[in-house]
């Protein structure tokens, strides 16, 4: 059963994120206006009521609390502003929901966009939130690949690897100590 809509090409979206501008990000009312414009462009049927929760975001206040490295939300807005999304049928409710929840989607609130895996995760989270899948991928592949890059999955597999390494290290140390003791015994005998 297919319930994900084909979306843009992954490589294009990676390039989009890599091209994130160095100039200061919009804040306060400017940011709110930008989000309204973006959502209207992607879903012209949007209503004021749907957009209303966005004004509660801290970054949209008159005196914003954020300034510095781009966070997940700003990166997602930059991503969604790509022309590739204009050709798709998107719903304002899903867009607003994605933007509101952006802060809690990834392990890091300010991902490193030069890191391929973090870019991949951000793109796949955005697409998944809009019920989209990357171009040329099946629903199954899209879900599987999202799982492969997700922060929580990463934490799980790294913990397993680390535990295994600790066990192996303990065995290696015990072996090294045993060898050292045997060498010392041999030296004493000789």
């Amino acid at each position, binding site marked *: 059963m297919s319930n994900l809509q084909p979306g843009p090409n992954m490589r294009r979206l990676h390039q989009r994120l890599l091209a994130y501008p160095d100039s200061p990000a919009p804040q306060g009312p400017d940011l709110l206006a930008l989000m309204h414009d973006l959502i209207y462009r992607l879903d012209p049927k949007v209503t004021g009521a749907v957009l209303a929760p966005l004004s509660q975001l801290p970054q949209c206040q008159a005196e914003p609390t954020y300034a510095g490295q781009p966070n997940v939300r700003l990166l997602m807005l930059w991503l969604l502003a790509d022309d590739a999304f204009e050709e798709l049928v998107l719903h304002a409710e899903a867009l607003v929901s994605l933007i509101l929840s952006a802060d809690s989607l990834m392990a890091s609130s300010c991902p490193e966009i030069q890191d391929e895996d973090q870019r991949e995760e951000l793109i796949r989270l955005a697409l998944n939130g809009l019920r989209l899948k990357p171009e040329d991928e099946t629903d199954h592949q899209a879900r599987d690949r999202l799982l492969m890059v997700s922060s929580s999955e990463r934490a799980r*597999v790294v913990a397993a690897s680390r535990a295994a390494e600790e066990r*192996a290290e303990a065995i290696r140390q015990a072996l090294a100590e045993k060898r050292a003791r045997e060498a010392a015994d041999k030296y004493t005998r000789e």
Partner: protein
Amino acid sequence: MSEQNLSHWQQQWHSALRLWSEHLQLHEPLWLFDVEASKAAGLTESFAAIRLTSQRVMVNLQEVAERNLSDCSLEILAHEIGHHVYAPANMTQHLQLLCVIRLALPSVEHLAPLVANLYTDLLINHHLQRNTRCRMDTVYERLKSAGGSQLWALYMRIYERLWQLTPGALTDADISAEMEGDAWLGSRIIKVYSKDWLTGASRFATLVLGYLIEDEQAARDAFAALNDTAEAGQGHSGAGVIQLPAIDVLHPSRDPELTDLPSPTSQDRDPEDLATKAGARGQALEPQDYYEVLKAAGVELSEHDAAVRYYRDAVRPYLMPFPVRTLPGPGEPQREGTEIWEVGDDPARIDWFATLLAGRQPIPGMTTQKAVFSLEGSEEPQHQVCDLDLYVDSSGSMPNPQHRISYPALAGALLCLSALRAGASVQVTLWSGARQCLTTDGFIRDETSVLRVLTGFFGGGTSFPLKMLRTTYARPRLRPTQVVVLSDDGITTMFGDDEEGTPGARISALALANCNGAGHWVLDLYYDPEGPEVQQSPWLKQTADQILFGQQQGWQVHRVNGLEPMLQFAREFSRQYYHADVTSPAGS
């Protein structure tokens, strides 16, 4: 293999070059058509290989066909080119890579070439898969049944993760949770350290260490066909001491660059602490490691020859300047006669007429003659180059220069090469116990022969070769000679009696009188013979007294127990005998 097929491969070669760069040029590969040709070229197990020294690619077309990879010509060729232009790219980086990996593979260091190959393959294949039209996954799908080891399963799972393939696309093995974590870390290493790939190599080696220890043979068998860099260093004769990059040895699960996860809370698991324990370095290799790394790179060289190369390259930055000669104004050169042209002299200086006139067979260094000229009107005496007579203590108390760096040997190499460069002749005598004495064929000018004796090792007792000193200085030397003895407190055996019962002190005094130069003791001492600590031990005091006696006799004593004192000695020596002010390494 038909001509049409070969033509296809040749066309693909140019396409593969363009995948890396429009301007890239490399020799066309050596196409091998059968087992005999492959064996002759040294390609025995894998279906393709590279040689970094000749920058050549070799492809065994028969083996490629047998593995059903004939339609993967672009992938195979682009991959081999990747070894030449990306990783390891050149011999220096290849040797550094092997060093870094060896450090991360305690107890299985000999598998460093295999790990280096797996790692560089990952880097190259990921680049090609992501940035070109190459379908590297197809190659591994075809090789799917080739391996049954755990390392093979991990390696394939890393590719599946890197290229987001369906789990099981490249390996049918059961992947445990731990291996899944390792595969994720492996893929992270390739993505995060694609530019700083030497650091990534260390992480990768640490990641696969457990798999290698568990089943070394299965891992070797599984990857034999892919090992295309095993002999990459064959024919290498380049110079240069390998500098170890300062890379900590750390399991990738503890590298914050890879995991974005907090470090373990346990105190003894702090990454910095672990790195320190593992011996983070940023310095030159020891001679033994240098040899092992060359061997791992496929360089065919004996341990002794590797040591010769090591010391020659190590002292090269510090070579002393040529002696400064005070010459009179230009005058007419007047032929004064001839003398023996020796091996190491400029061949253009052979006087063939004089050589043939002597009526004997021309034998280099024996019957070959060179003309001797003087300048008319030259009244000022010229500074004459001093010959060097070096005695190297090779007893058990001295470090084996082939295993770890020996500062006295380093000082000796520096003196020898500087003297040879200045036009002097050098005699080297390696000595240890009675009848353990190796010497050059008199005073010679052949750099390699000199260094071979210098870097030899007996490791026996201590008995200074008084006979050698006695015979060399039985009569005054015509050319001024600097007598240098490299030793530790074993130098005191110089004052024993020789085999004829002549007291060593007399021979020593005669040598100083007849050398027409000066005598030097370069000693690796852990104490100062004039310091107060020698009073604590009667044995030390006796030794120190004899060293002081030598000093009174005219020997100049230099303590050399590290790089800086060695350089200090060399500078002083240079200032004194070459009239040069050496304040920094030559060439710097």
